[in-house]
């Protein structure tokens, strides 16, 4: 299977006052490969380098060395982002706009034809159950509603690859269930989902493959079933073992 998301010896360094030589290594020679149609979990403790890796994939940060590509295109090219959808961890959108206007704005950037734009907006708003609030300004939305707007804008271009950073963060159980349903639906449609999460129970349920990162280094990568069989414990215990945390 062809990898649609790939990193090769990816290395990201930051200047830091705390580090001894003034340089902090956020990502250390990361080699990742995500195939089409799979749901890929990207796990690690806080500060492991997950968000940095995502920032490189999305072009927010330049890698110090190594490469990253999406659909075979270098991530530094804007066209690499034509077929992806991104949901950030903290969902903030223009407070002076309403949901419909935000989606229309992003649809325009994706060059979705005018004739299809409104239908697409209606479809995603229906999917995230925000039709009733489409004309209200974002500043009046609750956290959960903002998260759903985030999901809607990530899906507006019917992406082939969805990159989700902590998609269930801050959501109530119903909200989490809905996100899981959406991920499952996308998988059934043949889309690829790449997401980071701390909810290992969810990851174990939804993901085909996972990678566990710690201190910028890839500790393990593989199918969830294979890892559970290999380590003879659940995913949470595998996680704790690999990051060097004592397991009770």
């Amino acid at each position, binding site marked *: 299977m062809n990898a649609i998301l790939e990193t090769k010896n990816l290395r990201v360094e930051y200047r830091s006052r705390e580090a001894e030589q003034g340089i902090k290594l956020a990502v250390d020679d990361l080699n990742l490969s995500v195939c089409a149609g799979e749901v890929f979990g990207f796990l690690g403790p806080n500060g492991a380098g997950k968000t940095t890796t995502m*920032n490189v994939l*999305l*072009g*927010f*940060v*330049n890698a110090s060395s190594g490469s990253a590509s999406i659909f075979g295109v270098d991530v530094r090219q*804007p*066209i*690499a*982002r*034509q077929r*992806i959808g*991104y*949901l*950030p961890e*903290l969902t*903030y*959108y*223009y*407070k*002076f*706009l309403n949901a419909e*206007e935000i989606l229309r*704005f*992003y649809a*325009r*950037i*994706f*060059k979705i034809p005018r004739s299809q734009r409104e239908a697409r907006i209606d479809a995603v708003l229906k999917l995230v159950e925000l039709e009733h609030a489409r004309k209200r300004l974002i500043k009046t939305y609750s956290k959960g509603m903002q998260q759903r707007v*985030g999901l809607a*804008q*990530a899906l507006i271009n019917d992406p082939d690859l969805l*990159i989700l950073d902590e998609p269930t963060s801050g959501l109530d159980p119903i909200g989490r269930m809905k996100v899981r349903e959406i991920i499952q639906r996308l998988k059934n449609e043949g889309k690829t989902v790449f997401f980071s999460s701390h909810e290992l129970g969810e990851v174990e349920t939804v993901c085909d493959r996972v990678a566990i990162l710690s201190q910028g280094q890839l500790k393990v990568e593989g199918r969830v079933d294979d890892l559970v069989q290999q380590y003879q414990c659940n995913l949470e215990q595998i996680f704790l073992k690999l990051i060097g945390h004592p397991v009770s």
Partner: protein
Amino acid sequence: MNNAFAVAGIVIKEMYRRKDFYVLFILTALITLAMGSFKLFNDDRIVRYLKEICLLLIWISSLVIAITTAARQLPAEKELRTIFPLLAKPITRGQLILGKFLGCWLACGMALLLFYVFFGIISGAREHQFPVFNYLQALWLHWILLAVVVALVLFGSVVLSAVSVNVTISFIVVVGILFVGRHLNKVALQLTEPAQSIVYSIYFAIPHLEFYDVRDLIIHDLPAIPWKIVILAGGYGACYTGLFLFATWLIFRRKALN
């Protein structure tokens, strides 16, 4: 350009949904109408002072709108983290900067149009004449100035850390150029080296925004400027605008967003 115009549309929406413009417009209108209500020496045909006051208020308002709107564009995107979902789309940082510039400039243009229509009504009511051509020329030149100012402030927003610092410095620079820019060569002549060279360098390097301040011509009903000169002034403004935007892009493209 589609992406740039999409971003510009958002900026324009923001401007007309914020209260700043309406407050400034109402303030301008109220002060002008109050000043116009006085009957000095039983003569209701005195109009130039009113034109001057109105134009001064328009200039102050337009600079406030342009500088404050432009100064908060990029920092607000980063602070509110709206830049992440935006740049995760197929849009380059250059298109973002261009879009922000276009949005601020077009928004300022719309505000200016409204201000100048008001000005035209007020002066026409008193003077019983309406030199449309002259007013359009003044509006156009004013708009060109705002293009340079917006570009300058956008540059300041990627160089300086805080919005308030950028706004303050931008105001000082712009007002300083308007008041003193034309005269720096005279000041330089009175200085000794090396101060003379420094002042002369500043004189030739700064964008001469005073070219676009034709209030005196409007107030005193002087003839319009030849179109060749206006086109040259437009070109001059476009050069500086392009320079500031290019410099902004050079710095912004390398900046980490988090």
